[in-house]
């Protein structure tokens, strides 16, 4: 009975992680704002920054992977593979959030030493949506770390609870 609740818990976690990654993806893709300053029209899209494109791609990969693993049958031998793939997905998530955050921080605060002006003053809604996407990505990351620990626990039995 405990095993069943654990499995349901893991399934709920994976569904939540899928939802969070999908939300991050959608919020980042739909972030777009048109502003004009100094008689120049400026449109801010997520494709302007390479880091945001990477964020979208990474979250898309993680969403698709989570969706597929949701339907993996319990007795399948692929669960051992899922441990390594979970680690890879966690790595992908952290790297995408880290890269997007580094670039977004420059967009918000600028970089006085390099002469880069912050752009959030001109496109505040774009900045807010990117922040929202990053928060969703961070939630997906935390859920994935928990999922990784669960996969590790269920496949390799690290506490040696089964005497075989």
């Amino acid at each position, binding site marked *: 009975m405990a095993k069943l609740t654990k499995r349901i818990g893991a399934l709920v976690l994976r569904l939540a992680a899928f939802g969070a990654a999908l939300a991050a993806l959608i919020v980042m893709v739909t972030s777009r704002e048109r502003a004009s300053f100094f008689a120049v029209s*400026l449109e*801010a899209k997520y494709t*302007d*920054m*390479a*880091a945001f494109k*990477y964020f979208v791609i990474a979250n898309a990969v993680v969403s698709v992977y989570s969706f597929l693993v949701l339907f993996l049958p319990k007795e399948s031998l692929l669960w051992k593979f899922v*441990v*390594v793939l979970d*680690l*890879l997905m*966690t*790595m992908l998530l*952290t*790297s*995408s*959030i*880290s*890269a997007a*955050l*580094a*670039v977004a*921080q*420059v*967009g918000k605060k600028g*970089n006085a*030493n*390099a*002469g*880069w*002006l912050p*752009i959030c003053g001109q496109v505040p809604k774009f900045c807010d949506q990117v922040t929202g996407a990053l928060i969703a990505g961070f939630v997906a990351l935390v859920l994935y770390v928990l999922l*990784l*620990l669960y996969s*590790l626990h269920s496949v*390799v*039995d*690290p*506490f*040696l609870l089964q*005497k*075989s």
Partner: protein
Amino acid sequence: MAVAKLVLAATSGKSSKILLGLRVLAFLATLSAAIVMGLNKETKTFVVGNVGNTPIKATFTAKFQHTPAFVYFVVANAMVSFHNLLMIALQLFGGKTELTGFRLLSIAILDMLNVTLLSAAANAAGFMAEVGKNGNKHARWDKICDRFATYCDHGAGALIAAFAGVVLMLIISAVSISRLVQPNKCSISTTAASTSVVP
């Protein structure tokens, strides 16, 4: 006892030697990345204007501290290389310590945490370096690599070392996880162990 099986399998066998070699490589890679980026600094004097006939010169410095992503890069690489150093020391000089199930688990978890940390640091620094190299015309950010070429080259070298470290740490993490699996097929040298392998 199930614990004894895991202990003896983990301290001997070919996987230990491979792991040691990989850890030494990862330690060297991340340490060199941290050092090269930490010492990355370039000072240049530019002519910014002319007053009459005399040019006005201003000195500009490019340091790694100017970019938070690079600061994170240096710190994360230093942490991962320290972790690898500890693991190498444990393997070389902790010969008599028993690697119980919990210790192997904590080594595996620490390896996983470090691989995610390192990949995040390498990626953040990589994307910031890309902005520095190509600029961003949408945000009107000028590239800096045409003026500070040595700074960019050193940064690129540090990034390559860090990405090599990421790949190595990923392999190390996979090997650490595989050592947690019940060792029914591991080669064990001592005879005392062989009696406990058979369930």
